[in-house]
């Protein structure tokens, strides 16, 4: 194994802080509200399930992070195990997961700000992305332990005040009032709240004694956030009136804080949420940029993404292109949709990491790959992780599944571009263009001859003829590309 280029200088405390920094983000402040609407009191079961699936896969991360303590985390493991399409797909999913994590943070910040000011959510989210893009281009440091401790302290205070207030156990009866599908949907929706602990594997190259400290930090953070998030949901449900549980737009968390901490409690939670949002946004933007540069170095993306700013030394091209995607998603201002998509990317990525672990155990057994930490009850634990992650994808919202399907198709296309070469791709694109032309021409023929009962106005007709001409020309130009 190649020696790490960076110096190992971080001890167990900082490893735990990195894991918690990734895990305690804006997600709990914004996703829990809609999850309560989806599952009712059953949200506590959903969070428990999330925590279990998370720990199952975090055990795989522990083994891989301790055995391969290199820069890049998941993408590096997949390169060692598979290379090719699987490694690229994991890198792509990790990039998507960070992109949606950053989007969620920007929208979440806007929601938290709206507690104090009457702001437009989409506009504020876009402004936040642009502001932090400019700061990132100038260069920012990772969020420090203080931000994590503020969020942890606020949530812990929330739980303690709630427990002192007294929980109405009747509020949990019946626990499955929205049915199992509601609980599973809430599980997918809130899953991205739990996954941040893997941040420590991305920083494994800087951690002292990674064989011991990486697994300890990952498992400690996974257990802490499972207990914390379960307690937050338990307290929130315990003090919320039953009639509010059916309201999808109800701010359950800040309302609960108001009930037992007064107006100051609601404001404190909103401020802690804003801190957490900034922390999540900057971390996700850095991860996003690192992954896209890693994929560029391996030739999947153009080399210009590696260009650094002459004055600031930051990868500004990668940052700006990533931010363009963030602006596009942040402009929707829709938390629910982004929450589902982030959960989808995370679950699929987790399934692939468990597959990576199994592959490495079979093809690079212990004498060839030193494993300071071994996943217990192998192969049952990773197999259970795969089954549970994939089974939950069924409960994802349809439009979110479709968007993810699009992104996976796009990933395959990018991979094909690298494998097939430029000229073959041009010929394929030319053929698809002419296929579209054939389809549009047939559609126009069927509607004009009234074989299909569809009313086409003259404006739409002319627009379709224009598209037909453009695609014909594009098809021919792509097909007769000069071979170089």
């Amino acid at each position, binding site marked *: 194994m190649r020696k790490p280029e960076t110096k190992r200088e971080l001890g167990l405390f900082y490893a735990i802080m990195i894991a918690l920094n990734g895990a305690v983000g804006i997600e709990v402040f914004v996703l829990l509200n809609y999850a309560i609407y989806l599952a009712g009191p059953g949200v506590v079961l959903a969070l428990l399930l999330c925590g279990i699936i998370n720990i199952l896969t975090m055990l795989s991360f522990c083994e891989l992070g301790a055995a391969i303590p290199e820069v890049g985390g998941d993408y590096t493991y997949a390169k060692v195990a598979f290379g090719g399409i699987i490694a690229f797909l994991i890198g792509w999913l990790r990039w998507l997961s960070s992109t949606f994590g950053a989007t969620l943070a920007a929208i979440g910040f806007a929601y938290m700000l709206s507690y104090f000011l009457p702001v437009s959510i989409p506009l504020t989210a876009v402004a936040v992305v642009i502001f932090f893009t400019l700061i990132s281009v100038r260069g920012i440091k990772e969020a420090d332990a203080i931000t994590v401790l503020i969020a942890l302290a606020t949530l812990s205070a929330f739980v303690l005040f709630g427990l002192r207030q007294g929980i109405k156990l009747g509020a949990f009866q019946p626990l499955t009032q929205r049915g199992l599908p509601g609980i599973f949907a809430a599980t997918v929706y809130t899953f991205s709240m739990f996954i941040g602990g893997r941040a420590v594997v991305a920083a494994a190259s800087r951690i002292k004694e990674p064989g011991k400290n990486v697994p300890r930090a990952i498992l400690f953070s996974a257990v802490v956030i499972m207990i914390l998030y379960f307690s937050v949901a338990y307290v929130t449900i315990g003090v919320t009136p039953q009639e509010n549980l059916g309201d999808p737009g109800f701010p359950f968390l800040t309302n609960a804080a108001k009930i037992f901490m007064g107006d100051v409690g609601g404001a404190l939670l909103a401020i802690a949420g804003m801190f957490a949002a900034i922390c999540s946004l900057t971390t996700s933007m850095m991860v996003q940029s690192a992954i896209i540069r890693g994929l560029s170095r391996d030739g999947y993306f153009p080399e210009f993404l590696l260009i650094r700013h002459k004055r600031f030394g930051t990868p500004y091209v990668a940052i700006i292109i990533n931010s363009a995607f963030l602006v596009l998603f942040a402009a*929707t201002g*829709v938390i629910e949709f982004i929450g589902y998509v982030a959960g989808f990317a995370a679950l699929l990525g987790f399934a692939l990491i468990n597959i990576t672990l199994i592959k490495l155990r079979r093809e690079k057994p212990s004498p060839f790959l030193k494993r300071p930490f071994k996943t217990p009850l192998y192969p049952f634990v990773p197999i259970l992780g795969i089954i549970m992650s994939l089974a939950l994808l069924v409960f994802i919202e*349809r*439009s979110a599944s*479709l*968007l993810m*399907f*699009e992104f996976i*198709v*796009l990933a395959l*296309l990018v991979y094909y571009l690298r494998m097939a070469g430029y000229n073959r*791709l*041009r010929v394929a*694109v030319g053929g*698809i*263009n002419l296929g*579209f032309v054939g389809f549009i021409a047939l559609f126009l023929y069927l509607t004009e001859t009234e074989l299909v*009962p*569809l*009313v*086409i*106005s003259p404006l*739409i007709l002319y627009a379709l003829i224009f*598209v037909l001409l*453009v*695609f014909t*020309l*594009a098809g021919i*130009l*792509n097909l007769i*590309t000069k071979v170089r």
Partner: protein
Amino acid sequence: MGARGILAAIVGIVQSTIGALAIAFAYIVNYDLFNIQITVQNMLGISVEEHMPLYFLLILTFGFFSIISGFLLIHEWMESR
């Protein structure tokens, strides 16, 4: 720069623009911004809401493909300069 390069540039820009507009349209219809679903229903005489995810997927696919094809043509023009 030959006539083919200029033609590739023009077609590429137009095709990419069509793709971008298609994606914007897909989002506007999917989220029913400006109550556009009713307008589309009146124009085409079909219920849009019923199969919205399918239309959304189809228009997004068309849009992404259009942008990729357009970019390839723009790339050809840039290489030929």
